[in-house]
């Protein structure tokens, strides 16, 4: 699998290249700003783009805008955004179009190399990855919303779903059985008024409902 990296700090870029190589990626290009990133994606057509949110020239949300435009023009390219701090709106922006192949993580997660490598591989394979911080922040919303009806355990499960975990992974994380997780998830679907149609689709809808409580 091929990846491109956009990160303006040279020091961190070197580290990211090595982490992605460890994760089994071939790094096709490493660039320092959004414009070079779009050019590199156009030329290389990578499977994954790893993008820093804050980049020159404005040091605000250049990375997010580049990610959105990559998703639009080359929908097959998975995108993982790295950010110094959590901005739930970025996550919402990214996930509104299509939740597969999207990741939004805090920069410091890269330090846990093996976990990060697994996450990036999952996203490149079409999964979703949201930083636990993003999830925590999304959960504290807001006035009256259906999420209020969830029990703390169900919130935990939903948060892990939003991070893109499978049922088995959630069960392992919470140290419960798979069937217990399935029961929680069914409760979540019921409380969020998601009719039993397509199981996978409902899962995405639940995560989106979760994100929809933020103001876009």
């Amino acid at each position, binding site marked *: 699998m091929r990846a491109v990296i956009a990160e303006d700090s040279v020091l961190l870029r070197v*580290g*990211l290249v090595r982490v992605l190589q460890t994760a089994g990626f071939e790094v096709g290009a490493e660039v320092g700003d959004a414009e070079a990133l779009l050019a590199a994606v156009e030329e290389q057509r990578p499977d994954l783009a790893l993008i820093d949110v804050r980049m020159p020239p404005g040091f605000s*949300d250049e990375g997010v805008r580049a990610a959105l435009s990559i998703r639009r023009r080359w929908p097959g390219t998975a995108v993982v955004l790295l950010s110094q701090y959590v*901005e739930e709106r970025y996550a919402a922006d990214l996930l509104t179009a299509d939740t597969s192949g999207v990741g939004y993580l805090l920069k410091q997660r890269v*330090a846990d190399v*093996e976990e990060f490598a697994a996450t990036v591989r999952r996203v490149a394979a079409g999964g979703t990855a949201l930083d636990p911080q993003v999830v925590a*922040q999304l959960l504290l919303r807001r006035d009256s919303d259906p999420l209020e009806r969830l029990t703390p355990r169900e919130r935990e499960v939903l948060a892990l779903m939003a991070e893109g975990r499978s049922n088995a992974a959630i069960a392992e994380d919470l140290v419960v059985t798979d069937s217990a997780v399935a029961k929680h998830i069914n409760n979540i679907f019921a409380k969020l008024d998601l009719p039993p149609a397509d199981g996978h689709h409902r899962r995405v809808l639940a995560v989106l409902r979760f994100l929809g409580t933020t103001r876009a």
Partner: protein
Amino acid sequence: MTLPSVLGPPARLLRRRIGTARRDTAFLAAGVLPHLAAVPAWLWLGAKPVVRSVHLPWGVLPGLFAVLLLLPLVALPLTAVQRWRYAELLAVDIPRSLPAEGPRLRRALRLLVSAETWRRTAYHTLLGPFLAVAEVLVLAVWGTGVACATIYGWMWAMPAHTDAADVYAVQAAYVTAIGLLLLAAAPWFAGTVTRAESRAARALLGPSRAQRLERRVTDLSVSRADLADAADAERRRIERDLHDGTQQRLVSLAVTLGLARATLKDLPEEARRIIDEAHREAKEAISELNDLVRGLHPAVLDDRGLDAALSGLAARVPLPVRLHVDLDGRPAPAVESVAYFVVSEALANVTKHARAGRVEVTVRRTGRVVRVEVTDDGVGGADAAAGTGLTGLAGRVRAVDGTFRIDSPVGGPTTLVAELPCGR
């Protein structure tokens, strides 16, 4: 005249006395003409029309009216002359009045009816002549003193007219003594008149107490706002430096250690343990630095405003937080910064002390006030005077002219309210 508490070498003391006396006398001499200047103006402008109008049907009123209108005009240049005299000859500053605002005509009218103008007019037209008399008296004491003290000199220079030199010689001794006494008293007299004049000038020519206080308040609020802004800018700069430098470096260090941990599988157990430890330490340093930056001035506050910054803050609190942010546009950076700080400190306090089940944070703009309210259902008993956190909070709120109160009965609940004026 007071005795100096420590007598210096007599020669130096004497020199200083002479210097002071000379300065006072020059100052008083320069005052005679400007102090008298108002008298002819007074007579010419006022007395003539008053006298002329006595026989008119309206009596003296038009004349008085003319005086009232024209005397302040005379006061303007005379005040400038006096201000110059005090500054140049006595090194005393008579502060100017605050510049008036508005269109020229209204400014002139306001000047005409202001108490200040009339105090000045009173100084020049009523007090001035008396001061002139006092000044002339001081000069006369000097002149007489010198003339009397040197009478032997005069007698020696003009001996022809005296035929009973012996009698005169005895009387001349008295005259000399009186002259010396006058010379000794003259510096004291000059000093007393100078001090009295200065007091009168400060009271009547300078701005009134209310005006001085007004100016002081204006100055203080401006300098306080500048200080708050400077502190804010400094916090931002430190945040940027930490973010662009140290934080990136630490993350990259942690990544390198993480890589070592992930790839160097065949190291001896001891080396792996050390790498593990270094990796953990690096990650802890990152989260400590993040906490520090968050406490200073988080980047998200500048980039995305209060709502986003407070969400990040609330997500870190280990208990349920309900957050309502209802702002129409973004308030001034200083207000955002203080509001953020209030919520940050309040949440830290709740986490540490309140033993609360849930917290509610509301930030709402009503008119020109941003109201920050943090309520928890904890044990209460928070005291703004006891904790340094709450005291610092109150200080920062007051620095932007806000109000801060905390209501925390023992047994709870605790409500903390900060109201921050935001200009618009």
